[in-house]
């Protein structure tokens, strides 16, 4: 029964997706319909023939958010990109459904973070109106970004000196969270947009050799600290964004390839240094003999995506709760298990759409600063999606990085909404430039 409604719901979604490019209203409707059907299925218990009110209540809040959100966004951001906005809300809705189905209490926390993030993102136009000369803040961005990344490092050392652990270590041995005054957050997430802003400013002209060395060293330093904290996923993100912005600005192929060669060399060194990285790679290369321990998460992820075929198990009928930290690391597999791989493929296309729109926007930009900013944010979001999904399906080793907008993770969802907010603001700027 549940599956029947779900199938119908998805059919409508696909129908409306056809004209989504020309008529964003279709996307809006699809998001709303998806949320209605999904929460109806989650709330309805077909054995007891009863309806869970708590689920309906949460579903109601989500519905309110995704109905009102795009309208507000379109109004606040003059000429926001409708595709970006609706895609963001659609991904958020999928995320709320997937997390709620796995763990309802985490879903409410996620929802609150998303709402706060959205509210803050509405201030972006006003903030940029005050600081209209973004390029003058180059040094500030650098200091803030490096500071945020350094803070974990320093707190980690400080904590070990005074004997109070200030930094929490996650299950992959990565030091990511800092708790100050009872609020814990992930500084490397907050540093992301600052890093893009800094690089965009620094590379808005082709830099001189001296400047290039400085930017390179500063960036390498930050990546190095992230690696030392064993936050290898974030380190990879920062590296990739640096390379993309660097190449787009300078067009230097030898240095670009050299960068990747240096990265490869550094990977080998890291492989030798960190035992947990070696385990990761071993689990990736040859998961089946290791599936009792090392590759348990990965093999269970593969079982989840592969067992049910093109249309999935049906919402609520999968067994993804078996996988440890599924809400954050393996959310894609949990979605693909219940919605099927056809939906999974469309889901990947949503990120590809952000990539397409983002680079198209960057191409339209008349100022290099805006082009680089747009590209930087786009790559940050889409490359992160690539790394997360790629890890789930064994295309690349698993990193424990979040899937933007969908995975459970307060800092991550907050910052991704902000980044998309900035992209929306940039879209408005580009349109103005064009006129």
């Amino acid at each position, binding site marked *: *029964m549940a*599956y*029947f409604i779900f*199938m119908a719901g998805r059919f409508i979604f696909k129908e409306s997706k056809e004209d989504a490019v020309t008529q964003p209203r279709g996307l809006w409707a699809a998001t709303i319909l998806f949320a209605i059907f999904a929460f109806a299925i989650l709330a309805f218990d077909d054995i007891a023939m009863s309806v869970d009110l708590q689920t309906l209540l949460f579903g109601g809040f989500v519905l309110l958010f995704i109905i009102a959100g795009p309208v507000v966004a379109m109004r606040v951001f003059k000429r926001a990109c409708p595709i970006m906005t609706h895609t963001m809300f659609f991904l958020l809705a999928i995320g709320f459904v997937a997390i709620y189905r796995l763990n309802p209490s985490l879903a409410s926390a996620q929802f609150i973070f998303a709402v706060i993030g959205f509210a803050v993102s509405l201030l972006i136009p006003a903030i940029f109106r005050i600081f209209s000369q973004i390029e003058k803040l180059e040094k500030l961005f650098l200091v803030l970004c490096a500071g945020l990344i350094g803070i974990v490092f320093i707190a980690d050392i400080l904590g070990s000196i005074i004997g109070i652990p200030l930094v929490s270590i996650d299950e992959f041995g990565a030091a990511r969270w800092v708790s100050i005054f009872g609020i814990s957050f992930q500084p490397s997430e907050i540093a992301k947009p600052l890093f893009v802003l800094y690089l965009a400013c620094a590379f808005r002209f082709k830099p001189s050799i001296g400047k290039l060395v400085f930017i390179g060293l500063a960036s390498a330093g930050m990546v190095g600290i992230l690696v030392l904290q064993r936050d290898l996923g974030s380190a990879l993100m920062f590296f990739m964004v640096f390379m*993309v912005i660097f*190449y*787009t*600005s300078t*067009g230097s192929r030898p240095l670009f390839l050299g960068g990747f060669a240096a990265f490869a060399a550094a990977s080998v060194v890291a492989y030798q240094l960190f035992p947990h990285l070696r385990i990761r790679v071993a689990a990736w290369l040859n998961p*089946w003999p290791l*599936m*009792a321990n090392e590759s348990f998460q990965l*093999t*269970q992820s*593969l*079982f989840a*995506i*592969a*067992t*049910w*075929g*093109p*249309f999935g198990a049906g919402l609520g009928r999968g*067994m993804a709760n*078996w996988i440890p930290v599924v809400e954050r690391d393996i959310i894609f597999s949990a979605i*693909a298990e219940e919605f099927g*791989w056809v939906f*999974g*493929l469309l889901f*990947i*296309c949503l*990120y*590809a759409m952000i*990539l397409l729109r983002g*680079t198209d926007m*960057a*191409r339209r930009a*008349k100022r*290099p600063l805006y*082009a680089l900013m747009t*590209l930087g944010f786009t*790559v940050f979001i*889409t*490359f992160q999606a*690539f790394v997360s*999904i*790629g890890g789930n*399906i*064994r*295309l690349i080793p698993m990193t424990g990085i979040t899937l933007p907008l969908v995975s459970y993770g307060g800092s991550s969802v907050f910052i991704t909404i902000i980044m998309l907010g900035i992209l929306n603001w940039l879209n408005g700027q580009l349109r103005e430039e064009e006129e």
Partner: protein
Amino acid sequence: MKELHKNLRIMFWLMALLFIALGGYFVYVAAFEASDFIANPRNPRVAMVNDDMRRGTIYDTNGTPIAESIFDEDSGLYTRQYHFGAAFAHTVGYSGMSKAGLELSRNFTLYHLNRELVQRATYVIMGQELRANSIITTFDADLQQMIFNSLGDSRGAVVVLNPTTGAVLAMVSTPSFDPNNVTEQWGNLIADTSNSPLLNRAAQGLYPPGSTFKVVTAVAALETSSHWLDFVFECTGHAHFDGETIQCWGGQAHGLVDMHRAMAVSCNGFFAKITEEIGARPIIDAAEQMLFNSGIEFELVVSMPQFPMGEHPAIDELIQTAIGQGRTTATPLNMALIAAAIANGGIVMTPYIVDGTLSGFGNVSGATSPQSMMQIMDAQMAARLNEMLIEVVNTGTGTPAALSHIQVAGKTGTAQNETGIDHSWFIGYAPAENPTVALAIIIENTGGGTRATQLAGQIFNFAID
């Protein structure tokens, strides 16, 4: 700015490539690679029970149900029934909290609802039962039952297949167990290590091939030169090779024998002699050509036939290997495939046991089309062996398998083993002029004798009409 646009486009394509790889690999894993690993016992979904639908039936080739879910009005639950009891325990397997055989490898087919939307709708509106897909196997249940009964209390295995298609008609392993109450007897089954009733001897049992291996030795010799057909050896019952002695069965002297005669009477001395002449390399090549030391792709778990002899063996190992002793071990499935290849002009067809899927609505899909696995000898070689194997049955050790109305061809074997009591082998096919049935039989610890050969005759008689 223009250069920036150019660079931008390169970066876009770089990212786009990553996404194309992502989507492509995802579909590859989820749609194509999936069947290779989803039946893994560590997949918790295997143990899942869907009480609201009827698990698919497993039929034999004539539409007789072998495994079926029956609805119990009192409990409101389905129970799985195996109509042929222990006869299909190793092939069809069982489905309880743990699964095995086809019940494991096709678990998700048997749980899959064809046109799920329609079925769910009629279920809700009209209360019609949800029926998952069924499986049609290649087994002939009557043949399987007959073989199972014939083996009785003996330990042994039989593989019967169609040499032209690779369809397995029967696959029996004894001792067996009753899949209807496997959970209750589980403790006893795993504790019985002397009989290993859970082991599928037909595909996993590794036995010394004994004299059935002479087929391989003959191929090795004829590959080096067809002149070996004219080679004549005088058998005195004992043959000496650098101080090593090899005896024919019971020390019997066969007199002057050529290859045809030596095959028919299973003369050890002859095959040891030609092996001494040609050396180890041709034997290794022929054995590896005939699927030793390589895996076979099969629906059920198989063991790899072992041929560990190196290129420079001691004379003792070389001559023992030539007559199927030494360290060589084979599975009954592999020996059946060799017999089938001789019957099929040298071509091994990929063995299969699932013919197709039958949906809850009664339409068949996914019918298996026969595929040739490889050519393990040329057609001329197969024809030569055919002549020899006919002679084995007409005038040699294989006479107990001979039938009045069907020309049987085959090779007997007596395998010495560590228990001290010999195993009895027979591999062969019939009718020799146009084979439709090929088989391999092993019966453990018969102390030699003709039991396997007699059973072969019964099976051909039963299966060919």
